[in-house]
């Protein structure tokens, strides 16, 4: 019955001596997006904290550090990739954050709306990241 079928679903995790807790769940888009919202939030927080702490602890001003990066003569595609990598989690967290605020107003909580708004957030994230990294 249900218990045995779940055990069957999680068996490849058990074989790898891992806990089956992640394998027996039916992953869905809203679920994955929710954990990504948390993940990007933590990553962005870490970045801001790193920036703040290095301002306090590392000698030299911002301009000198930028000069150091400039002296590495990195190619434009690498710079674009780095900008994209910086702006992508910020954009995802921002657009999904707006989606969260809409939920807090009580709107868009029906299941099909959840998936529609989720896809909209993903599309907006990619478009805005591409656009901002090109600036």
């Amino acid at each position, binding site marked *: 019955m249900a218990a045995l079928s*779940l055990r069957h679903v999680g068996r490849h995790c058990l074989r790898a001596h891992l806990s089956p807790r992640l394998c027996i769940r039916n992953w869905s888009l809203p679920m994955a997006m929710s954990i990504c919202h948390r993940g990007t939030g*933590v990553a962005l927080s870490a970045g801001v*904290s790193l920036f703040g702490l290095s301002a306090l602890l590392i000698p030299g001003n*911002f301009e000198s550090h930028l000069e150091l990066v400039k002296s590495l003569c990195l190619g434009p595609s690498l710079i674009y990739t780095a*900008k994209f990598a910086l702006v992508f989690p910020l954009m995802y967290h921002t657009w999904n954050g707006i989606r969260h605020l809409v939920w807090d107003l009580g709107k868009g909580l029906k299941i099909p709306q959840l998936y529609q708004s989720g896809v909209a957030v993903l599309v907006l994230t990619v478009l805005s990241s591409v656009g901002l990294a090109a600036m």
Partner: protein
Amino acid sequence: WLWRSGLGKPRNGRAAAVLLNKFLLARPVAVLTRPVEDCHHQTCKFHTSPRSFAGSKAASLHWTSERAVSILLLGLLPAAYLYPGAAVDYSLAATLTLHGHWGLGQLVTDYVHGETSVKVANAGLYLLSALTFAGLCYFNYHDVGICRAVAMLWSL
């Protein structure tokens, strides 16, 4: 609840199956107690307990403040682009730190258990947020400031 039942480290397959069985048998009972007539059209009406049950309004105010700060931060992003300067720099430093502090606080609430662990985690979080805010303000005062820094970085 599923992992707290001890499924985390199945010492032998049978123990895990028995525990899993026990919990999944318990669940249908919980489902039966939910009012069936509300679950139509892919929505479920739910009812919250009356406001008089809460001892204080602190949690409710905290929730509202979190949303207010989120909206403020949202507005600061275009402001940083259109009106860069000291006002936006310091507002960003404060709002960013506060939003991050409360967000990480939710993580502590969700993942840290045990009275001492929670106290230690929150103390560490306060320290991190304080240092971050201090660092950002220092940067705003002694260096170019957040808005200019992003502009300079982007012109690379």
